[in-house]
């Protein structure tokens, strides 16, 4: 098959091309880099979706914050609503790749790449994000737990295009935080990551979502850690119990970035930092974005 390239002006044009077998490209930071690294050759038929106006922008439709598929990490971390209400997502977007990755890489591509180490995944999962998938046959909305099927695998059909990511506006009193273990500041992938989204009312944790990153075949919630926090005052004992539960729920692999044993041990430390960061933010306190760097070496973390 000879190679082809088209640039779609509308979602409909993109869907028509995808239906004929073309693969979409936006920022190229996963598709092209993956081809360079030998993961998968570049597709013969490519449809560029980076100029589709209908896929841009961040809007607040009242109940939900809706991110167009083409919103870049750079735009997310600069957005005041994201920083204030979806702070864990800002933590993640601030440390994805390098400044060039963040300027070109899109949230839609990031989600569909389905890496178990992706920084934005834990925040999106804990914040209850749902993706809109469109095809020529119609449209459906799917939670991330239903979308991610394994490393690099989704349940989306090849003829579906992610068009938007919707995130319910968190309840008052909610703080969120994403922390990763990293060996360097940029061009890094999480060795281990943890997300905490906690709602605190009158000093009691009323809702808790904890997720692990690079610790299982997909990014996933940790119900045991959440149960260890709900109904408590978020004190040291509750944090320790939740962090232990996080480590116990981890099933990491060994690879060049860390052994399974090291990852499991660090899961506890990173979970503790993420929970502490989310509690501070829930209480109106300030933790620098990105939290990974704020909490590193913080005496309050016990390290």
């Amino acid at each position, binding site marked *: 098959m000879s190679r082809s390239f088209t640039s779609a002006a509308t979602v409909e044009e993109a869907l028509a091309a995808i239906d004929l077998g073309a693969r979409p490209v936006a920022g*190229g930071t996963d598709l*092209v880099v993956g081809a360079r690294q030998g993961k998968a050759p570049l597709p013969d038929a*490519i449809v560029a979706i980076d100029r589709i106006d209908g896929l841009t922008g961040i809007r607040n439709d009242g109940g939900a914050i809706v991110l167009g598929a083409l919103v870049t990490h750079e735009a997310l971390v600069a957005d005041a609503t994201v920083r204030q209400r979806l702070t864990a997502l800002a933590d993640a977007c601030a440390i994805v790749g*390098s*400044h*060039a*990755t963040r300027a*070109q890489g899109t949230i839609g591509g990031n989600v569909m790449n389905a890496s178990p180490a992706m920084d934005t995944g834990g925040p999106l999962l804990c914040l209850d994000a749902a993706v809109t998938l469109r095809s020529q046959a119609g449209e459906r909305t799917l939670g991330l737990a239903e979308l991610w099927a394994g490393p690099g695998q989704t349940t989306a059909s090849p003829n579906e295009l992610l068009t938007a990511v919707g995130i319910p506006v968190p309840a008052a009193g909610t703080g969120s935080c994403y922390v990763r273990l990293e060996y360097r500041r940029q061009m890094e992938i999480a060795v281990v990551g943890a997300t905490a989204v906690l709602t605190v009312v009158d000093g009691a944790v009323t809702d808790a979502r904890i997720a692990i990153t690079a610790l299982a075949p997909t990014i996933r919630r940790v119900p045991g850690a959440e149960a260890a926090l709900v109904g408590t005052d978020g004190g040291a004992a509750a944090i320790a119990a939740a962090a232990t539960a996080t480590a116990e729920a981890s099933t990491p692999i060994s690879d060049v970035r860390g052994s399974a044993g090291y990852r499991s041990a660090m899961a506890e430390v990173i979970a503790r930092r993420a929970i502490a960061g989310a509690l501070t933010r829930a209480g109106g306190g300030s933790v620098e974005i990105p939290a990974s760097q704020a909490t590193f070496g913080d005496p309050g973390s016990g390290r």
Partner: protein
Amino acid sequence: MKISATLRVNGTSYPVELDPHVSLLRAVRDELGLTGSKEGCDDSECGACMMLLDGKPVNSCSYLALQAEGRDVTTIEGLAGDEEVGPLQRAFLQQFGVQCGFCTPGMLISATALLRANPDPSDEEIKIGLSGNLCRCTGYDGIVKAVRQAAAGGVPPLGQPPTHADATPPHHAG
């Protein structure tokens, strides 16, 4: 099959015929003959290929050239405008931010993007802004000083003694 396109690089429009898989870097180097941008790792790790795409940094080795049609591409050749070298480039020379020079075009592009977004960066912000660019020679110190000097302004012309307090040449024993 090759596809006809027009690439606008440093303000000049170039008609080209490109295979859909050709990267922006290969197109600019091989088709346009602008060889200032370098290929280091070819997978977005090293930053030697950094260009600006509508003012935003891009690892051009990992960006499809055809996607750049209709956008403004800036390479190292376009940084100084009508000058031979601009103030940022002079600062790199004067602060010893260049040794072998292979990373320098990408460093200058990243530093340009940084200074446009943040005209008065702290040293920490400079380091983060340049951390998508790897340098094997300088130890980065001269590069950070150069960006700081360019941000402060008043970089003297070439051929004059450096005025910056930090701009003493490294001491070479023996």
